């Protein structure tokens, strides 16, 4: 019997010549007892393989259960162990990070929004209107009203002065700034455009305040228009150049 199995084993496990293979197959077809032994050899191999798969799956299940019990799945990639936390925990961490990142980005965007920049400038530089050399008493009255935050009254004063025929640049500038305070942006822009048109002024603030009004209004397209004006100020080395550079960097 051992010789028979040795012969069968030799056929299936080793390289044999074509002649040996033909002899082996002839024996199968001509010798039923031998065919039975070959079938048993093959059946054993097949059953052992099935058992092997079952054993491995059983072992895999044990390993999986161990991983489950530990709560973490250990993974080894490239010879280094890393711990995979449960997906829920990752999700919570990712969600928290996203919220924080969103808040930070939102805060940065809010701080750097054109309206916020304009508000900062209004509060810092235009909280009060400084006296200019050569301004009239009427203009001084309007400026005082502004500084007392009586914006409606200040605007009425400035408009009255303009109606009475004052053609100066300062009253229009002040009227525009007061309109900004009152959130009358279109009027403010009209006044600043008038200021822009003044020729022969050493340092014309019209373009700068026009840009400021657009930033404060912040309607669709205002930001781009404001940036164009600010670039013009920088390129032309006009009034407010330093602020223009700063704001362009922020926007």
């Amino acid at each position, binding site marked *: 019997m051992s010789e028979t199995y*040795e012969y069968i084993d030799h056929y299936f496990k080793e390289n044999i010549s074509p002649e040996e293979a033909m002899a082996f197959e002839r024996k199968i*077809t001509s010798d039923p007892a031998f065919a039975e032994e070959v079938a048993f050899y093959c059946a054993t191999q097949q059953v052992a393989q099935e058992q092997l798969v079952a054993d*491995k799956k059983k072992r895999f299940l044990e390993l999986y259960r161990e991983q489950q019990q530990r709560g973490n799945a250990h993974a080894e990639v490239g010879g280094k162990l890393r711990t995979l936390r449960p997906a829920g925990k990752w999700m919570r961490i990712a969600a928290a990070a996203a919220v924080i990142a969103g808040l930070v980005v939102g805060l940065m965007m809010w701080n750097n929004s054109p309206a916020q920049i304009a508000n900062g400038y209004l509060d810092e530089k235009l909280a009060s209107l400084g006296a200019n050399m050569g301004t009239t008493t009427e203009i001084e009255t309007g400026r005082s009203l502004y500084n007392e935050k009586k914006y409606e009254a200040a605007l009425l004063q400035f408009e009255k002065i303009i109606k009475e025929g004052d053609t100066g640049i300062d009253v229009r500038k002040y009227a525009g700034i007061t309109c900004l305070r009152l959130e009358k942006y279109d009027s403010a822009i009209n006044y600043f455009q008038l200021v822009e048109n003044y020729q022969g002024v050493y340092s014309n603030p019209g373009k700068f305040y026009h840009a400021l009004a657009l930033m404060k209004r912040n309607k669709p397209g205002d930001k781009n228009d404001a940036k164009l004006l600010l670039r013009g100020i920088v390129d032309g080395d006009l009034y407010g150049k330093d602020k223009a550079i700063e704001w362009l960097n922020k926007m």
Partner: protein
Amino acid sequence: MTNPKIVLKPVDQAMFDNLNGEGISKRKSEELFFTSYSYFIKEGMHKYSLSEDEAFDAYSDSVLAALDKLNKGLFEGRSTLKTWLFQIFQNKCVDLVRKKTTNKNSIHHTTSITEMLFQLSDASKSIIQQLVERADRVLLKQRLNELGAKCRELLMLSADGYSDREIASELDYKSPDVVKTSRLRCLERLRQLYKNP
């Protein structure tokens, strides 16, 4: 076993070398291969709405199929081992979903015919296949488990593709020839047990 032309991603080299190793290290590597990507099971549960048991079956079948392909040098290294295994796993999951919807229960693929039969010509194969199908597999499995630990281990390692040289090294036999003789004697004993219960 190993395809010498294969170019692996660096991340897979250690794993691949271990899986193509011998003896205990190979067994350990197989287990490590399984545990490394066992989180696919949750993926299967989530993505294909499988129960944990079903996803586990699909994953363990995928690992076994991948190990079999690795043994036969069929992994070409076109992707990482992880990606490759995940593709096999996805296919198993899809098969499972399909079988569930057509009321077929099992995804366990037991070989209907051992690969060794393909060495035979059609005429011989037909004879042997019919005889194998007539065998009482339940009884044979039972007898295999009754054979004794040493014999069982010899036959199981041989069925797992270990050569006599590898088994000799693994189980401290003097030589591969001694393994072969012992293994065939075990087969003979199994035959007697099977024929004369």
